[in-house]
Each structure stands twice: as C-alpha cells, then as structure tokens.
C-alpha cells in the first residue's frame, strides 16, 4: 500500500512537507521515469516503492519501469555488480553482447516513454545501456549508482563508464563511492522510511511476543547485530566481543539475519557462526526469512545496544534503522557507518572485538550515557536520514539540472 505525504507529516513535520511541495512546484507535470531491474527484493526496489508514489503525490508524472531479461542477462549484470564492488570477475565479449542485446530488446518497449520523458533516472548498471539505445532523448538522464564503487574492478568499470559517460549527471551515495566522470556527480545519501514495517512504532505487547517466540529473555539486556551471515559483517567478531565480556555484563547476544538458504557462502558462514557460539545459551542465532521486517523491528526495539561491527560496509542502513529507534550503535570504523556513528554522541566506532567489548561494558555500566546517545541518534536520523530529505534532494537536483547549477536556486 503506497502512502501519501500527509501520512508522513506527523513524523517529519509540516516544514519538511512544505519544502517538498515548493521544490516540486516547478516540476509539476514533468515526466520522470525510474528504471531498475526488479520490482521486488533489494534496497533499490524498496526505495522506488515509496519514491515513485510520493513523486506522483507531488504532481509529477512519475513512472517506474523494470528491464526484463533471461537468466544469462542477470548473470552478466550480477558480474557488473560484483565488479563495481571490487570483485574479481571476467567480462567477455559474449557477456557484453548478451547485456547490450537484452537492454536493446527492452528499449523497443520503453523507447517512446524514455525518449519523451523530462527526466529519466537509471538505477544501477543493469539498465545503463538504455541511454545508447534511446538516441532521440528529450530530457535529462541521470545515472543513480547505489553500489559502493569506491574500488571497482577496472575492466568492469571501464565498460560501465563507457555506458554512463553520456548521462547528464550521476548520483552516488557517498563521496568515497564516486568515480571520475565528465558530468556533474551528486552525492545523495540513502534514507529509511519511518512508516515501513521495519521502522514503524510497535506496541510493547508485540515486541514482547516476538522475544518470546524466538526464546529471548525480555528481562535481561539484549545486544543485537542484524545482518546477513557474511564475513564482511564480522558476526564472529561480534561473538568474540561478547565472549570477552566474560560474564562481567549480564546480557544476551542476538545475531539475526536472512538470506543464507539461497546463498551458498552464507550457509557456510552461518555454520562458522554457530561453531563460534559453541553452544553458549546467551548467544541467539536467528535465521530469518527475507520479509521478517516486523520481527527485526521488534528485536531492534528490544535491544539495549545495536552492533554493526562490519569490516566493510556501504552506507549501513541497519545502523540508521537502529538509531531511528533511539539505540546507541557500536559499529565498525568503515564506510557509511562513520557518517552515522559519532564517538560519544551516537555510539562508538571500533576496529577490533576488544574495542567492541570495551564499549559494550562502558555503555552497560552507564545507562544515562546510553539514553543520551539514543536520543542524539534519533534526532540525527530525523534531521538527516529520513525519506523526506532523500526525496527533496532528488527534486532539487532535477530542478538544478533544469535551471542550471548556479550558486543559489530558489525553490519557489
């Protein structure tokens, strides 16, 4: 069910909604087409599920289209994805041919809409070749890269660059992810939807029932890390930190995540995590289905501290979600976690399990500090990482591209 701006007003305030309406005033009636590769699953689809209806609510003629393809095509785009993240992948002429032909096939269907649109936003590399397949473009084309492309595989990047160089602008989530291109590169950080199942307020009864269902003691403090069972998330480091507490803190650890069943490496890591827990009854390892958003929400809300001890991280929206729920975060000193976790204000950045154990002990012994950090974290997210800011930046960027990027831009 799509929500309207009015639904968000009680959360973000009337001024934030007014800014959105002002930014959209000059864009009323403009055709905006978002193109990605899936309607369900993954962060991009989650963003488009709220972004598109809210743009419509603001008077834009916003559409969401999806490129279709066969498994071989998605095999190639997965290789692009991995390559942009720095993975060692091969890129053959055959793969490039499959990719370009599939996008051209999609262009046959989408061309009239895309060539006449005022703005086309292409999300990630999968549909990037559409620009080349639509030579009679009328509007501005924007490439939105959601991937951490800070250290891409050069061969993959050189090919992707040849596809995106001709766009009017690109958007990256963090400055560190940007690559050199011959057009303006904007920085728009991700955001969370405060009314989604993952973030909406829950009743105490629902939270308690969730804990009971998963065998978590609601009378003892909970430390939680929510993440896929992936070595880059360092779940074993979190267990080591918990073991280092050595009984000095009366708490339980919850490691909860999904996606292991259809991910061979995830299954291996899950087994490693179970072995590291060594049957400790205070370590709860929960393998959750991909749509367990309310369960994750409840566990986060029941936690005293949220851990995100990643060794490598994009932006780290699980950190944003935790902070929105007023929780201090002990996070790995990497990627976007550094933008969100500020030592002594919203949590602590750590580099080792020892550092994490030290900070857990410090916080558990200073409840007033935990409460202060939780309040600060919630305020920081409210001001910077909710979807109204994200939507406003899309609108003002489009306005800027339309009017020209002078020092000042009047939204009214």
């Amino acid at each position, binding site marked *: 069910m799509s929500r309207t701006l009015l639904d968000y007003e009680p959360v973000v305030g009337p*001024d934030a909604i*007014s*800014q959105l309406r*002002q*930014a959209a005033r000059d864009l009323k009636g403009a055709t905006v087409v978002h193109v990605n590769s899936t309607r369900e699953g993954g962060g991009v689809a989650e963003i488009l599920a709220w972004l598109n209806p809210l743009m419509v609510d603001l008077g834009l003629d916003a559409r969401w289209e999806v490129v279709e393809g066969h498994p071989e095509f998605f095999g190639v785009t997965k290789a692009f994805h991995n390559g942009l993240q720095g993975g060692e992948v091969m890129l053959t002429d055959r793969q490039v041919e499959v990719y370009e032909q599939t996008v051209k096939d999609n262009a046959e269907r989408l061309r009239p809409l895309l060539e006449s649109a005022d703005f086309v936003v292409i999300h990630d590399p999968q549909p990037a070749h559409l620009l080349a397949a639509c030579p009679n473009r009328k509007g501005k084309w924007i490439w939105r890269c959601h991937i951490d492309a*800070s250290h891409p595989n050069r061969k993959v990047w050189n090919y992707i660059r040849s596809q995106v160089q001709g766009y009017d602008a690109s958007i990256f989530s963090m*400055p*560190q992810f*940007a690559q*050199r291109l011959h057009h*303006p*590169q*904007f*920085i728009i*950080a991700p955001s969370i939807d405060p009314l989604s199942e993952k973030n909406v307020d829950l009743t105490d009864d629902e939270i308690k029932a969730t804990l009971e269902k998963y065998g978590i003691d609601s009378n003892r403090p909970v430390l939680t890390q929510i993440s896929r069972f992936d070595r880059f998330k360092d779940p074993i480091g979190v267990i080591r930190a918990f073991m280092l507490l050595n009984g000095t803190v009366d708490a339980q650890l919850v490691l909860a995540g999904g996606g292991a069943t259809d991910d061979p490496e995830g299954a291996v890591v899950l087994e490693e995590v179970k072995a590291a827990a060594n049957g400790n009854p205070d370590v709860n390892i929960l393998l959750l289905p991909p749509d367990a958003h309310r369960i994750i929400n409840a566990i986060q809300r029941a936690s005293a501290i949220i851990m995100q001890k990643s060794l490598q991280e994009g932006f780290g929206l699980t950190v944003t979600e935790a902070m929105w729920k007023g929780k201090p975060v002990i996070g790995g000193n990497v990627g976007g976690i550094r*933008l969100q976790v*500020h030592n002594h*204000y*919203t949590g602590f950045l750590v580099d080792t399990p020892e550092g994490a154990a030290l900070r857990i002990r410090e916080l558990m012994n200073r409840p007033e500090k935990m409460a202060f950090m939780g309040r600060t974290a919630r305020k*920081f997210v409210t*001001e*910077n*990482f909710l979807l109204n*800011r994200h939507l*406003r*930046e899309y609108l*003002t*960027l489009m*306005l*800027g591209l339309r009017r020209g*990027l*002078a*020092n*000042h*831009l*009047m*939204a*009214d």
Partner: protein
Amino acid sequence: MPFEVKDCTLITRMAGISTAMNLRELQERVIICPEECLFHHFSETVIRPTFDDPEFHNDFAVWARRQLRDRVLAERLGIINPYKLNSLEELRLLVLDIIEERLSEVHHIPWAPPGHDFQFMQAVTVVFDTGMVLKTPEDLCELLPRMSHSSIYYHFVEARRRCDDKRDDFSNWLDGFDEDVRPLTEALGNVEFYFVALWELQKRLIRAVEKALPECAHE
C-alpha cells in the same frame, strides 16, 4: 518592508578534482579547485548532514587533524575565519601559504590512511519559503527561537557571501527602521558567528536581541 524568513538546504556534488592523499596533493588541488569548493569546505560544513567537529570548523583542518595526524597544521588551518578575508581568492592564498609553510617544516610528507583521502566537494544552495514574516524588529524576539538552524545559517552566515556589503540579512533589514534600532543592529554585528555551531549561534542571537530590546524579551 516585511522580512520574509527563508530556509535552505544544499545539493552537494563532487568538485571534479582528484582526491588528495597527502599534504603535497592537497596543496596542488587547492591551487586549482573552484572558489565554490573552498567556500563549501570552510562555510557550508555547518549545514551538512554531519556532526559538528568540536575542535575545528573547516574540513581542511579536520582532515589534517584526523587523517594526516598533524595537529600543528590543523591548528594553523583551524584558526582561519574566511569571513575576515576580502575574497575567496584571498582565502585560497592563505590556505596555500599555511600548507607550504608546513611542507617546509616536515621531514616526511604526511599521508592519509587508505580510503581517507580528502574529497573535494561543492554545493548549490537551495532556498525555500518558510511562511514566517518579520514586520517589526520586535518580532525577532518571538520568531528567532522558532527559526530552523538552516534559516539562521542562510540569513546570518551565508548572507555575507550573497550581499555586497558582507553583512547579515537581519542587519540590512533593520537599516530600514528608525535610529532607535541601531543598538540592535550593533548587537547583532558583535555576535561571533563562524567559530560556533548553529544551535549556539541561535542562542547568541536570541540573547543579543533580548539585551537590545529588553521590553519585548519580557513579554
């Protein structure tokens, strides 16, 4: 003439310059970076979605301290107040002078750890109506506490770049009233605005207005 209170936000983008991994590269990039980039790293830091650094108010000083681990350089850069200079070109020359002095003092060029390069950015300021209107100087007493931090930034800090006389918007507006508001204009002119966070600046402005207009402060 009523004063329409505005709010603002930034659209941030890369300045199109390679990152700097060490002090020598910082020097080379500062020579060529656009003025907007210098302005962003010195002045727009306060309204970006980041935490204020309690020690330093410009990105070059913060990077020198945190990534190059060079406290001497950080302190020299950190004391620069760009609003005391006549132009952004003057600011560029001062920054280069400090970097070059430091390069002549150190035995090894300081490097940032991998992944902590200095990223050169710039921004467009997007301005919004707030619907808030000041009709008389006394309205400042009631409305200043209700303004957002970004409104304070726009009218009291950023205005100095926008206006030829390098004054804030409130003072320029107060010039249209009688002589008896001069103490208020002077009080605003004495408020330190660069080396403080916006919430602190708002408090200082409120105090200055209440002191200059004691009758409305007690209402």
